[in-house]
């Protein structure tokens, strides 16, 4: 039977093989994420001329968009296609870096037997911070840790912040300090005053509008554990100093079974019942739009944001109010999720891994290539002003705007208008002050408990957002959730995670 099956499958394989063609210079195909590119002719003409001379390759990009990238990447990976030599990858979309590396979808770049990184990308080690490579190391199909993608040099530390509408706050005689001092559990009075004040004209005002799916992390100080796609697990940071373990040490918990979570949920319920929280952020499909709309129209008092260096300026300008960000940890923290936020991997089926590596090395070290691919052609897509800042030509930019962070090393780019000539320097200094989490580098492999996770994901979805926004009664919903999770085997998942964490820490 098996032989017969093999015969049939082999016949199908022969039918579906596509003959590979040799060409010179070598054409490298690349799949990018989040691009809005409708006309790349001018850029490619310049770029390919340069690349052909310099490293003997030409580039053929496929401009994936937010909407189609996941599907394109899944198609390519699951079918073992050699369509793309280079593929964007990261730890937060459906295109998960760690699971795909483990399944063998990507070339190991620091393979001891064929070290592409050392041979063709030695400069990368000089340009990119060492900690990026640390975070990019993940388990391959052989169970060994290795680097399976070139990490992007961008805002690589996470800043969970409360986004405060200072203008509105001061209108009612409060200061930013009051908000900071009172903390999440003490905002009731401020909310009450502002809500009553804003509703004098008979309208409805909600002072507290945030992203319900993640806000619990801000309050309880729990980072995302890479590989825990459903947010079931909690690791408690030391929010006073994120580089050392918190009160519980390096242990992972069932997110919903801790006293911290219950306290948080009860407080949310109080705020919700008092009318401080917009009910629309408790509804799955309207949550994000409501949150972003409130922010953009400055129709909130306190909100949540994963902030960036220099973001106060941008948002204050855009919203026409004074915005301040209150960090919920002592410093921006470096975790896998932020470091693996944008990377470029070489497909295991690529016919030209060497050329692909050469190109990636150049892309991340040569300002000309990076700027050209990211910002377009000088004189067409942008011009440089007297300060050396980029000013975009809006029309041309509308037809050519890749996702900046998704391309590569953003520190090679010239500053944009308003950022100042020394932007990159300040940027680098700021992130140099960020701290590594004690479990930095740990990735949870959920494969062994997949069946449990599939059921648990459905249970969690039915409660999580409602509990985290206060939309349901904690006394009935939380015990119900915990019972169901137990029945579905959450303990097995938590135990597996702790076993893996112990092994990672070498305990």
């Amino acid at each position: 039977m098996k032989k017969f099956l093999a015969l049939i499958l082999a016949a199908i394989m022969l039918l579906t093989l596509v003959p590979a063609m040799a060409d010179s210079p070598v054409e490298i195909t690349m799949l990018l994420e989040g691009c809005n590119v409708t006309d790349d002719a001018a850029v490619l003409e310049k770029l390919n001329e340069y690349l052909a001379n310099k490293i003997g390759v030409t580039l053929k990009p496929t401009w994936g968009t937010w909407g189609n990238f996941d599907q394109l990447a899944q198609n390519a990976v699951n079918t073992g296609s050699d369509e793309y030599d280079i593929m964007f990858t990261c730890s937060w979309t459906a295109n998960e870096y760690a699971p795909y590396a483990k399944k063998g979808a990507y070339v190991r770049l620091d393979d001891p037997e064929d070290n592409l990184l050392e041979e063709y990308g030695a400069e990368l080690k000089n340009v990119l911070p060492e900690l990026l490579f640390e975070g990019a190391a993940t388990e391959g199909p052989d169970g060994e840790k290795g680097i399976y993608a070139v990490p992007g040099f961008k805002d690589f530390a996470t800043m969970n912040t409360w986004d405060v509408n200072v203008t509105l706050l001061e209108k009612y005689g409060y200061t930013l300090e009051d908000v900071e001092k009172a903390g999440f559990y003490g905002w009731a009075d401020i909310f009450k005053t502002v809500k009553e004040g804003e509703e004098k004209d008979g309208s409805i005002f909600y002072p507290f509008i945030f992203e319900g799916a993640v806000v619990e992390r801000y309050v309880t100080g729990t980072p995302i554990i890479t590989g825990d796609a459903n947010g079931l697990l909690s690791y408690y940071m030391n929010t006073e100093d994120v580089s050392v373990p918190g009160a519980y040490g390096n242990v992972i918990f069932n997110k919903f079974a801790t006293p911290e979570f219950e306290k948080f949920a009860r407080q949310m319920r109080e705020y919700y019942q008092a009318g401080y929280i917009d009910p629309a952020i408790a509804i799955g499909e309207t949550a994000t739009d409501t949150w972003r709309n409130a922010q953009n129209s400055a129709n909130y008092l306190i909100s949540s944001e994963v902030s960036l260096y220099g973001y106060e300026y941008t948002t204050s300008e855009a919203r026409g109010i004074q915005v301040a960000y209150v960090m919920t940890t002592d410093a921006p923290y470096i975790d896998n999720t932020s470091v693996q936020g944008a990377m470029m991997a070489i497909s295991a089926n690529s016919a030209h891994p060497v050329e692909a590596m050469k190109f990636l090395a150049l892309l991340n070290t040569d300002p000309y290539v990076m700027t050209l691919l990211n910002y377009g052609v000088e004189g067409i897509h942008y011009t440089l002003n007297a300060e050396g800042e980029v000013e975009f030509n809006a029309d041309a930019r509308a037809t050519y705007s890749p996702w900046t962070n998704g391309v590569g090393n953003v520190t090679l780019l010239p500053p944009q208008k308003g950022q100042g000539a020394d932007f990159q320097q300040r940027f680098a200094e700021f992130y140099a002050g960020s701290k590594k989490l004690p479990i930095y580098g740990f990735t949870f492999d959920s494969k062994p408990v997949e069946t449990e996770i599939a059921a648990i994901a459905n249970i969690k979805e039915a409660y999580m957002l409602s509990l985290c926004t206060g939309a349901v009664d904690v006394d009935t919903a939380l015990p119900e959730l915990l019972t169901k999770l137990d029945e579905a085997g959450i303990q097995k998942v938590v135990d597996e995670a702790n076993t893996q964490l112990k092994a990672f820490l070498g305990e």
Partner: protein
Amino acid sequence: MTTITKKNPHPFRLNMVSRKTETLFHLILLLFALACIIPFIFVIIISFSSEDSIRQIGYSFTPVTWSLDAYHQVFNLGDALWRSYFNSFFITIVGTLLSVTMCVMYAYPLFRKDYKFRGFFSFLSFFTMIFGGGLIPTYIICKNLLGMSNNYAALIVPMLVSPFNIIIMRTFFQTSVPFDLIEAATIDGSGEYNTLVRIILPIVKPGIATVALLTALGYWNEWFLCLMYVTKRELFPLQYLLMEMQRNAEFLARNSSMIGASGASAIATLPSQTMRMAVVVFIVLPIACAYPFFQRYVVAGLTIGSVKG
């Protein structure tokens, strides 16, 4: 029987339901038809609303301020818009012609009780209505074996045959073609193709029009094939253009906290909500205009009565 005079405003009142009943029918159908059209009117209203209005009070029948911005944005798509319009028409017309031809040719022998392999071929098509190989194997066969990648074929061929339509078409043959007609034609020495084209097809026109309508709607609404097989923008149909905007927005909304603040600025550069509604209007209008063409056969047949041999 009533005498029909030429003055009678409703000469066909003969053998019709009573006026009272007909009024009731009108009432029920009108209410339902209105319920069907109101959401579309709502879409039109949103497309003329200002973004600010949506931000303030959400989607509403009575926006705070009106605006033509959405349509300016759509027309700013320029070539991309007209190109995708062309693609949609091209795919729909070619796809429907091919698909209906294949459907009729497959359904006709299935209806013939005297066809030897009727059972076998019925099952052959029916089975695929239920079971499929799944996304990955189909993708590989279509792309690597049949070369469907970045071409019109990729947008047409994978939907060519619909077992559902075949069964519907066979049922139309069954309900409207008397079997003696075929026997008579055979005795007259008419070949099988000749019988089908000359004698049978005119009788099942309403059925063909219906299947063609369903097929055309299917092609016009299709976007998933484009997502799977096409990355070249020149080939995008209009529906995919809309879906791309929709999916971009949805993705950014879901991953907002992951992309962080740069996600917020990415959302800001997305096509606006109102623009997406304007594109919906652009998608619906042509097919709403083409609809009466198909309908001529479906409804008009009611008064004429079918042509019987």
